[in-house]
């Protein structure tokens, strides 16, 4: 197992963290990961991450949900067991469509929302029985942690991080995965 040295810099304010991320990146250091207790707006842009494609996935899931609703209601109400409800015999999907719109809407939303959340979890490598990756439990409370791999001068990087307002700086050996 190869192991590498990383620096963990902890911050206690999201604005200071944002400024620090910008400064560290301006100094051409690679930031491996940032752990935060809550979503920080604009952090993805500051880190230079590629824009999320979850919206496209969600649109596709919504279309699948809509299709499932149409096919399902067509089978249940028109093909398998047609009934005469309120003087509207179910012989044609189109003529009975207004009654199915709420179902079409609900299943579109249901598919889009649930599959989007599941996709998000999987894409974030979070699945059942997975051990937490965050290196410091304080990042689930009130601290923000920036992880930077060390290549070259360790002291220079430490000083830079101190300047940006880090409240704690640790150098740890991390097992690569």
């Amino acid at each position, binding site marked *: 197992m190869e192991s590498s040295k990383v620096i963990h810099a902890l911050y206690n304010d999201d604005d200071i963290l944002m400024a620090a991320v910008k400064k560290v990146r301006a100094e051409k250091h690679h930031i491996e990961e940032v752990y935060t207790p809550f979503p920080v707006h604009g952090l993805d842009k500051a880190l230079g991450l590629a824009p999320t494609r979850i*919206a496209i996935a969600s*649109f596709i899931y919504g279309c699948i949900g809509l299709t499932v609703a149409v096919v399902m209601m067509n089978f249940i109400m028109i093909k398998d067991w047609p009934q005469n409800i*309120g*003087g*509207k*015999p179910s012989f044609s999907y189109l*003529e009975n469509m*207004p*009654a199915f*719109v*709420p179902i079409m809407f609900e299943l579109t939303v249901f598919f889009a929302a649930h599959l989007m959340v599941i996709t998000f979890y999987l894409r974030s490598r979070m699945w059942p029985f997975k051990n937490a990756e965050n290196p410091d439990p304080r990042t689930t409370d009130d601290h923000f942690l920036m992880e930077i791999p060390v290549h070259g001068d360790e002291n220079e990087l430490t000083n830079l991080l101190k300047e940006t307002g880090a409240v704690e700086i640790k150098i740890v050996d991390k097992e690569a995965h």
Partner: protein
Amino acid sequence: MNYTVSNKLKIVSIILVIVGLLGMGYGFMSTPESVEQVETMLANESHHGGGHEAATETAHHEMAAETHDAHGDEAAQATEDHGGSHAEHVYHRLQNRPWAAIYVAAFFFFMIALGALAFYAIQRAAQAGWSPVLFRVMEAITAYVLPGAVIVFGIALASHYIGHNNIFIWMDDKVVEHDELIKGKSGFLNMGFFIGRGIFFILGWAGYRYLVRKFSIAQDTASDTSNFKKAFRFSAAFLVFYIVTESIMSWDWVMSVDPHWFSTLFGWYVFASMFVSGITVIALMTIYLKSKGYLEFVNDSHLHDLAKFMFGISIFWTYLWFSQFMLIWYSNIPEEVTYFVTRIEDYNLPFFGMLALNFIFPFLILMNSDFKRVNWFVVMAGIIILFGHYIDVFNMIMPATVGDQWFIGVPEIGAILFFAGLFLWIVFTSLSKAPLLAKGNPFIKESEHFHY
């Protein structure tokens, strides 16, 4: 920086008004003068008419087709003679057409201004931080509330006092005499109460608009925030007043054209239509002014937020439209469902086309987050939304007044041009009367730095 109305804009609005006047005049001149004239006209038409009517009839046979005559009866009662022939029926509908054409366009432009006023009051009452840079644009649009409302109300009254009750048949005493349903509603639907309510609404809306504009301009040079606080309080109170009066106004000025029919969510439905039209015009005007080099403090994020509102309220409109439609369609009660039967049979294209324009287009075009920042995308979506909501008003007024004799021709387009010209003139003149940045607003810094 102040805005000055360019000469080009002035000329364009004057031309629109003149062309519109000619169109509306032509509409009145070209109505048939006698029943005989209509008879010959119908005789000519029947050569190339054919089985069209029969086809639509069978297509919707499940929709209580036997009841759709109820609506025809209403119009027939509007004619002086009860045993009126088909030609006489058509003659009266054609006579109603220029009135209805003007009324639809007048209401559409008035609705934009009132929708913008509601949006503005919400920004004020919520003390929104993102929008104060757009306040002067919104205030300018709301300048049309008073003239617009007076014109709509004036046309409604003129159709009774000058015309022959061409828009509201409940105004005709001869009709009410023989109509038990309208008679039962005459405690509410009578000229005196109608006029009183109308005056009360207009005074309330225009009074709020006058005061809040005064506070807004006074705040520019004030040393404290007392004007801002007053505007906040008046706006909160106005929103309560607005939602009640807007609802009653929609029964009075729109729903009562079909005096037999009623829908309990009609006020909300008209509100959604005016709200989305108002927001769309705010967005279009902002983009126009930015393209002319004004409003340098407005950025992409403001536009993005307006486009989000256009997207969201379009869906809200569809939700209300469908809520109204589905319940009536499902329950299939003759006196209710006749409203949709006439629209599906005689107004098939505008009725379903409106859904595409007001829902499917904005939904698909404005769904992508990035597109909401692209000016020409928002302009394109905005034009579609405005056209769709004109058709929406058209569908509300026309079936009761001209029935199957509808067409979007010279009278309708003339009326649109006339009110568009008037709207542009009043709105841009009002815009030029105050600085474009409401610089005294306590949230103006937040708004200028708004970034999403």
